[in-house]
């Protein structure tokens, strides 16, 4: 089947304006008769549910959390991009569009990305009106900072908690609609199946996590805003509960999974410190503005550090390898995320890693402390400051800029980063892949929509910093509320969907059977142990760099793991009670299948692009794209034996495909 992205015709600048001006609308009196289910309450889900509620639809909104406010969007630190050009530094919608396409290594759809850049401006307006306390200048106007390699300052932020503040804004809007009765909220409900009637998504099966009861919820259409699947790697910066189940259940009902192998590995995370570790913590990208990344040149020094006989401070300047500055003199420590991550891996693979696991590099602020210290002393009129004064003044500047991050680092590692250089290592952070959607954000299943990180649409093979928040809110506030009308305008004569229809019956029965089966195994291994093993396989064979042989091996290992899981997993309790182990087991079962799909996708894509790095396809150690053969979106139809590939060709009418170079 050839996939139709439904990109409107016409010049890029006018596509969205013309499209939404001419699309069929649903009249207010008809909106009242239409039911919409929104699953997920992160930035995308909460903004969509509240906006649809404002428009007059009957919305039912679901989250597995105890409150909509807990969604993992809350943890985003750095900021949100918008082409406001408040800094008068040459930013524009086109520039944001172009940066995003280029940053995504030319693997995203032009029309979607341009629309994203257009509505980015409205998001900031909306958030400010909701009371999001963005950082401000002394004049009372909004402040910006620069982020991740782009040449303009377009990132809006609220200290290091931008995601939290934006999510609270959306949560508050959602709360308002709940109080007005236009949105009915279902907390602690996990979606376990999509129900299709005559090929259209007409509802879900949700499990009430407190009672274990399976509930049928019917609606005219279903919106999934259920986030990314980084936890397939077990260790990631995602929250413990982040999972692929809702999206994967949609896949099992015929939706296509697009580009699942595109995974973003964030270069600056706190390294793994032991086998018991449950998650990894991100240190904001902004640290690379002042920190220098290095490893010791000599293996003897490396060993001494690993054994605790030396610290980073004991290594003389000449014995340090500032490998990013050496390899990429033009961008130095500010190369994009994928490049920085791979370089750290290379340094550690060559045996230069600086902690006991051998998987860490230094992020060193001592130069910045010296530089700021001297400059501070100078402004205070002290032109020949002593070393202690420089250090004191410089440390104060670093503290003012990154204090909360340094504090967080010390809380976790117990080491003072003002004295000893920070240790960092890349970790899984974001998944660019997701459910395939067209220009309307509708999957190949009619009436099933996907928003935010759950879809694949805007970031191509690599996401730029501060763009995830932008996309989630763009989809929820300003895109879906229009495009959902293209489906619903044909449904105004459809009566309320009957939850007693045989399709609901079937979905509930099969879900119940699935739960019973997993509970009845009563094996000897915990869910957690399977998840950990899955993560190891994924990281080893489908992580920062991949090769055909490893991917084939990894796929087989996952298939074996799947068989073992369904034979030997132990899940206590019953399905009719609050049972967190059962929830976890269902999620891990879905992760295992997704993992196989990722291997298949990575094996199919014989090129290196963005977050997908195939060792066979390099040029002088750098990623080598193959535009000739792979300028397409891989959308996978699931099949237990061999997933089926559907391609959507990517057509670039406005930008020229170039090799990304940071040297």
């Amino acid at each position, binding site marked *: 089947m050839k996939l139709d992205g439904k990109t409107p015709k016409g010049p890029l600048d006018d596509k969205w304006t013309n499209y939404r001006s001419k699309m069929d609308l649903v009249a207010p009196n008809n909106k009242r008769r239409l039911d919409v289910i929104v699953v997920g309450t992160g930035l995308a889900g909460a903004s969509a549910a509240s906006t649809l509620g404002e428009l007059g639809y009957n919305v039912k909104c679901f989250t597995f959390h105890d*409150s909509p406010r807990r969604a993992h969007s809350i943890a985003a630190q750095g900021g949100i991009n918008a082409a406001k050009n408040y800094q008068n530094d040459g930013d524009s919608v086109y520039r944001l569009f172009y940066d995003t396409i280029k940053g995504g290594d030319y693997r995203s759809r032009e029309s979607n990305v341009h629309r994203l850049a257009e509505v980015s401006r409205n998001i900031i307006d909306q*958030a*400010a*009106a909701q*009371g999001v306390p963005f950082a401000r200048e002394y004049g009372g106007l909004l402040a910006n900072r620069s982020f991740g390699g782009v040449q303009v300052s377009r990132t809006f932020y609220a200290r290091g908690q931008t995601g939290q503040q934006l999510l609270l804004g959306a949560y508050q809007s959602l709360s308002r609609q709940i109080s007005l009765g236009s949105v009915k909220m279902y907390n602690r409900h996990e979606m376990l199946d999509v129900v299709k009637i005559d090929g259209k998504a007409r509802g879900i099966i949700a499990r009430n996590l407190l009672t274990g009861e399976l509930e049928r919820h019917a609606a005219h259409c279903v919106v999934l805003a259920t986030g990314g699947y980084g936890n397939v790697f077990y260790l990631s910066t995602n929250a413990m509960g982040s999972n692929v189940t809702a999206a994967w259940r949609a896949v099992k009902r015929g939706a296509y999974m697009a580009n699942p192998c595109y995974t973003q590995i964030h270069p600056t995370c706190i390294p793994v*410190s032991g086998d018991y570790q449950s998650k990894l913590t*991100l240190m904001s990208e902004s640290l690379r503005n002042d920190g220098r990344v290095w490893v010791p040149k000599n293996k003897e020094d490396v060993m001494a550090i690993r054994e605790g006989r030396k610290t980073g401070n004991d290594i003389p300047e000449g014995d340090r390898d500032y490998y990013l500055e050496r390899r990429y003199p033009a961008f130095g420590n500010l190369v994009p995320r994928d490049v920085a991550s791979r370089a750290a891996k290379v340094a550690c693979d060559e045996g230069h890693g600086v902690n006991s696991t051998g998987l860490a590099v230094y992020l060193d602020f001592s130069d910045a402390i010296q530089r700021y210290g001297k400059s501070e002393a100078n402004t205070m009129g002290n032109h020949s400051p002593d070393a202690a004064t420089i250090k004191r003044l410089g440390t104060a500047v670093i503290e003012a800029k990154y204090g909360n991050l340094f504090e967080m680092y010390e*809380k976790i590692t117990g080491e003072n980063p003002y004295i000893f250089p920070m240790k960092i290592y890349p970790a899984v952070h974001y998944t660019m892949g997701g459910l395939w959607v067209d220009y309307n954000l509708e999957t190949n299943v009619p009436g099933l929509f996907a928003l935010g990180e759950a879809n694949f649409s805007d970031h191509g093979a690599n996401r730029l910093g501060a763009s995830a928040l932008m996309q989630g809110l763009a989809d929820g*506030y300003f895109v879906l509320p229009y495009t959902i009308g293209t489906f619903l305008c044909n449904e105004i004569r459809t009566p309320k969907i009957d939850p007693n229809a045989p399709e609901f019956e079937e979905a509930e029965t099969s879900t119940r059977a699935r739960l019973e089966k997993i509970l009845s195994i009563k094996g000897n291994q915990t869910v*957690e142990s399977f998840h950990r093993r899955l993560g190891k396989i994924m990281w080893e064979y489908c992580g920062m760099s991949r090769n055909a042989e490893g991917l084939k091996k990894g796929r087989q290992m996952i298939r074996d793991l799947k068989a073992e899981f369904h034979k030997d997993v132990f899940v206590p309790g019953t399905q009719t009670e609050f049972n967190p182990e059962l929830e976890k087991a269902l999620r891990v079962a879905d992760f295992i299948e997704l993992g196989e799909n990722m291997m298949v996708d990575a094996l199919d894509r014989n090129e290196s692009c963005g977050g997908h790095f195939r060792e066979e396809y390099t040029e002088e150690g750098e990623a080598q794209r193959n535009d000739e053969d792979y300028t397409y979106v891989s959308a996978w139809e699931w099949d237990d034996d061999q997933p089926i590939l559907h391609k959507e060709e990517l057509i670039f009418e406005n930008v020229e495909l170039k090799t990304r170079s940071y040297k």
Partner: protein
Amino acid sequence: MDLILKVWRQKNNKDNGRFENYKVKANEHMSFLEMMDVLNEDLLAKKEEPIAFEHDCREGICGSCNMVIDGRPHGPNNGTTTCQLHMRFFKDGDTITVEPWRVKAFPVIKDLVVDRSAFDRIIQSGGYISVNTGQAQDANAIPIEKDLAGQAFDAATCIGCGACAAACPNASAMLFTSAKINHLGLLPQGEVEHSKRVQAMVTQMDEEGFGMCSNTGACEVDCPKEISISNIALMNRSYVGSVFGSDKGS
């Protein structure tokens, strides 16, 4: 390190609940929740039911985790959530008591898991600015003093974990409620419906059955985001103003 954990086990809301003692081997690099993971894996290996507890982001921002550790919500360290608390702050051989939030308005669901939906209902009663999507003017149309925006942020940093009510000897939720009232009320955008919001949110807070603030200050000490008790004073002032300074209501 070898520890003895005295953990509250309660099958469901109808069960009376009791403490159970567990031995657990931890190491000092673990977070408190990772230590709990180890304990749960031990229990599962013995085919026993693991301890239910809430957790999600494990980086101190989602507000899910909620344990009272040796009498203090989120444990002995100030400005720290349970998930950010590391075992290096405990000693080999320690006995650690772990209890759920004990607040009537947060009924226990199971073991250490409580129902905090009362907080959602307080927000739903008025903790928002009534602006529909698309109605907003340009974000820079209203300048806001930098310090004022900072003050609003300090209140907005609340993660809704409920530690304030859990720490309060009176199980009062006034720090939570006042933080949201002030976050919005301090900003010009939120000032418009401030009076209405204060009244609605205070009324809802009372209906949920939280206790009354007696200004002990325990909430601000145990708040993982260190939100100041001065927020409660500001709420009190706004409330009095909204009752006596307005011609609404009769």
